[in-house]
């Protein structure tokens, strides 16, 4: 029993590491790479995040994460490129275009500094925080526990997120009808 548990822990740790690396690489590719990388990178984020969550004994949550993030990736893949959405392009000749490109570079620098600061604060909290380790009493998929939480104890939160999804779909339909 002990050897089986050790082998299972090693396998889950390996799966978590691979899926986490895939998700982080995908997020960097979607953020920093060219527009053609966006869809495969977001698909990598969805698969990696779902795999990492599944390796944490949360099978149902992983399935929902895969559906939600995969759907988001497909939606973003259908968006037009930067030329149609008004993004500044480098190499402009007019002073106004040059000013806009300079402002965009400033925005990039501020965004990078803020992201690095956020990463430092979160990593400090994760690595230096004294979190209590606990034995997880649930199963590997979590269907019964999540069902009880969604439809019983936290039904209001479940309804609120369902309403949010409904508002998103209604807003998308309205925007499509006006176009």
């Amino acid at each position, binding site marked *: 029993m002990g050897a089986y548990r050790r082998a299972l822990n090693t396998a889950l740790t390996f799966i978590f590491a691979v899926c986490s690396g895939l*998700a982080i690489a995908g997020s960097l590719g979607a*953020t920093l790479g060219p527009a053609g990388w966006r869809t495969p990178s977001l698909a990598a984020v969805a698969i990696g995040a779902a795999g990492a969550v599944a390796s944490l004994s949360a099978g149902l949550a992983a399935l929902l994460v895969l559906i939600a993030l995969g759907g988001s990736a497909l939606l*973003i893949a259908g*968006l037009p490129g930067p030329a149609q959405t008004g993004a500044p392009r480098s190499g402009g000749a007019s002073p106004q275009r040059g000013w806009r490109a300079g402002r965009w570079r400033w925005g*990039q620098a501020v965004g990078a500094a*803020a992201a690095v600061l956020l990463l430092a604060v979160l990593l400090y909290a994760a690595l230096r925080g004294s979190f*209590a380790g606990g034995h997880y009493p649930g199963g590997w998929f979590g269907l019964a526990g999540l069902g009880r939480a969604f439809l019983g104890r936290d039904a209001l939160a479940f309804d609120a997120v369902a309403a949010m999804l409904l508002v998103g779909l209604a807003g998308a339909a309205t925007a*499509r009808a006006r176009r």
Partner: protein
Amino acid sequence: VSVAAALAVGAALLASGAFAALRGGGAARQLVALPVLGAGAAIALAGAARLAAGRADPDSGQELAALVAVAALAATILGVAWARRGAAR
């Protein structure tokens, strides 16, 4: 896997999503932030639930991870519709 490792992966994804949101460069590039932020929050919440949960409440982290992912999908639907409308004008 330790809880610190799960939180560190979540932190890396959250920082990457924040950078995508703050960087600019068009609606499509900024909307990338929503699923990436959702992925980071989901991993951190599921990791906290699995590895640092009290016996009294083991499922809240998993539940919140699923809700955060669905909320990210809802926000992405609205954001994509908004961006498409702006591009059509």
